[in-house]
């Protein structure tokens, strides 16, 4: 009986460790119906770039702000500035940086760091 109990409890501990590993690493709980504010940062950044791309086409600042509110950020302009500066400091795709800079400028958040990425208007191009 003693032999059985020792084996059982030793195996129970090992089984517990295996169970915890399985439950946390290969098969973790995956939530659905999460709000956008819980998006991983890289997806939040992607989303911001997508909205910035839309803004470049329609220059609809109100629409861009409304769409970014989905992320639950307290200060949308601040969020755009932070994403733009993070993209610059982490040497991300220049085209994406430019999109973010255009949106940041539209929100009055153009910083010296962003200046080199402002789109250049050549003579004869648009207004």
């Amino acid at each position, binding site marked *: 009986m003693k032999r*059985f109990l*020792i084996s059982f*409890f030793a195996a129970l501990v090992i089984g*517990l460790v295996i169970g915890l590993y*399985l439950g946390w690493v290969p098969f973790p709980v995956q939530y659905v119906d*999460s709000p956008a504010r819980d998006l991983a940062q890289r997806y939040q950044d992607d989303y911001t770039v*997508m909205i910035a791309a*839309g803004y*470049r086409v329609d220059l609809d600042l*109100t629409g861009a702000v409304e769409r970014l509110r989905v992320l639950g950020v307290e200060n949308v302009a601040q969020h755009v500035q932070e994403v733009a500066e993070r993209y610059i400091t982490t040497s991300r795709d220049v085209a994406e940086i430019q999109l973010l800079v255009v949106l940041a400028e539209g929100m009055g958040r153009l910083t010296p760091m962003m200046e080199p990425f402002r789109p250049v208007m050549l003579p004869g191009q648009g207004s």
Partner: protein
Amino acid sequence: MSESSASSRSRTRQYQRPRRLISWFGVVLGVSFGIVGGLLLAWSQPVQEYDTAPWQLTAADRSAYMVAIALRYDSDGDVGRAVQQLIDLRLPGDPIEQMAVAACELATTGYVDNASGLHAVRAMMRFYQAQGRSGCADQVISVDDPASTTIVDIQAPTSTPTLPPPDTKTPTPDGGIGGTPTPNILVIPTSPPQTDFTFVNAATFCDSTRSGLIEVYVYDVNGATGIPGQAVRARWDGGESTFFSGLKPERGTAYADFQMSENLSYILDMPGRADPLAQPLVAVTCTTAEGQRAVIGYRVTFRALE
């Protein structure tokens, strides 16, 4: 004698056999209980959500994400990336078809009541139509973005305060229901149904005698002949009002006006005839040339397309 000797040898061997340290039955039972217990423990722990992927979003936020995908596609035309992002959303069935379904849902709700929403749904339509799909949004709105959604260059903040708005200066013609008849009977000239109108421009003015007034002018295609009896709608946070051109003949048949409340934002459109202005008209304060304080006014012009 021989039987008793064999039995004795067997018993001796049994006691001489080394005892196992492990009870395999105990091990199997322990591991089983342990794994089950570990899984239950792991899955029942309060989880701090992080690294949420787009496919885990609520239906509404997934829809917003699809709008963003369409907007980006509209900007760079990168079909591959757009499709991949839709696949990442793990939508049931054909992801492009799902874009059409989402556009349909948005087009049949208040989402398209403003220019931003219209533009977004049109971007979605352009995406799925280019991939040979169709949806109910195609019947609700046109994929072509008419000139009426031209951006208005108005320098005003976009806050939306919640003060209750006053009634319009020009009441809607309700056929005189109730109320005492007034001696001045105003006959609203009617005109044959027009095709869609387009927003032409919006200008601001600061005048203490016309403080906070939206002046709307509705012209025929030639841009000079006023069209009376045209409904213009102003919407604000929590309300809306429709007013008509031509109710003040002394200002011309094209003229209609609406009195704004200070600090409110108004979306202006011609219901069913012209898209809403891309930016709200905000009733901010201004200082007149004489140094008087007033609420800014807007002069907005619509013109018939044909």
